[in-house]
């Protein structure tokens, strides 16, 4: 089971790859849309990459509730098999 730090690092890697976010900016309090300039289509790509990397499924209604990097980290922690 990856640690919280591992999850944050993995998420940062995805954000850099998909949306060009500098890894240092991918901190829990950051909002994807307001702080990191991630648009709705990129969020879909990020969700797919998270599913692959962490083995979780993110239903569309859950994706709508993920607003910050911290939200994504909690979702991954709770739902990993």
């Amino acid at each position: 089971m990856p640690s919280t730090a591992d999850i944050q690092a993995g998420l940062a890697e995805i954000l850099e790859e998909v949306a060009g976010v500098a890894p240092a900016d991918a901190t829990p309090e950051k909002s994807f849309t307001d702080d990191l300039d991630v648009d709705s289509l990129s969020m879909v790509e990020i969700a797919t990459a998270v599913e692959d990397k962490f083995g979780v499924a993110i239903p569309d209604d859950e994706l709508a509730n993920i607003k910050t990097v911290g939200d994504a980290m909690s979702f991954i922690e709770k739902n990993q098999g």
Partner: protein
Amino acid sequence: MSTPTADVVVTGLGATTPLGGDVASTWEALLAGRSGVSRITDDWAKDFSAQLVARLSTEPADVLDRVRIRRLDRSQQVAVIAAEEAWRDAAGADSGVAPERIAVVFGTGIGGAVTLLDQDDILEAKGPKRVSPFTIPMLMPNGPAAAVGLAVGAKAGVHAPVSACASGAEAIRWGLDLLRLGRADMVVVGGTEACVHPLPMAGFSAMRAMSTRNDEPQRASRPFDKGRDGFVLGEGAAALVLERADAAKARGARIHARLAGAGGTADGYDLVAPHPEGEGAGRAIAAAIRDAGLTPADIGHVNAHATSTPIGDTAEASAIHDAIGDHTLVTATKSQTGHLLGAAGALESVFSILALREQIVPATANLDDPDDNAAVQALDIVRREPRKATFSAALNDSFGFGGHNMALVFTTA
């Protein structure tokens, strides 16, 4: 009905092509007689009758940031690269023109076909959930125009003419109209194409439109030559910045040339084959010369569409000969760049402008043995090496499957 007139000038040029990653390197390679054509070495091409292509000399990934590379189809990437060069060249960002007065007209022949086909592969292999959310904005034919619009901050309007291989030239004509009608104060116009993929290659091959001179890549594109056997598919984009002369002069912009006139017609003859005597093409050329307020005698240089197909080149030669005469210096630069389809008219307009500015006509490569056709024989087609000449007007024509004919006239600034 009279056409609104306004003096329109070209203040910015941009290009990324098989000959170079920008206008200067492309032009230098063109005058040096270099070819952008090579043989495809990928496995998929082994069974293809036509295996030649003119790929970009500079990969877009070496120019654009990773996020834009990821979100844009290759046809959009090269459009943005060319448009940003033209915009810098025109000092557009410092022009003081409000975004609400800036427009974009950018054409493509095929658009995001490679995205469509790649995403279909993903759909088949992995299912619908794996298809990229950027699939639609990447494949839509207005995608390149929209990406250019974002790059230059255009809010007056973004338009995307689609007329096959006449798209780039048609975009320039639309830009001229927008400025004449007062609908914008600055327009970024151009064309783009990047569709090197087995399916488009197979489709063009099935039409017997492509050269199969696979063992001699650099000699395959040979417009007007007896031995021509089809075109070579090229990729790239070119862009121009247009504005009204009074505004350009007022802001101290450097003026490359005037866009003096444009003409467009349809053949009304066949879906694909050109009219054998180039009837519609000739009418477009004549209309552009009239629109420019000139006479055929004024046209000192023609950058011909001449793709190296057996039927197309002779039809065009007849059109040029009938509409202009045999005094004009003709060249066919696809002999070195390959055929950039929807980008062709834009790139060849850039070449026409540079020829005018520098008073030199690039040579038609591989024209060893001109066709017996009477018009080809009568025309003064520049070959072997570029020719210095004195002329004040140049014409670029472009034709597309569907019977689209476009002609543009540029004059010295």
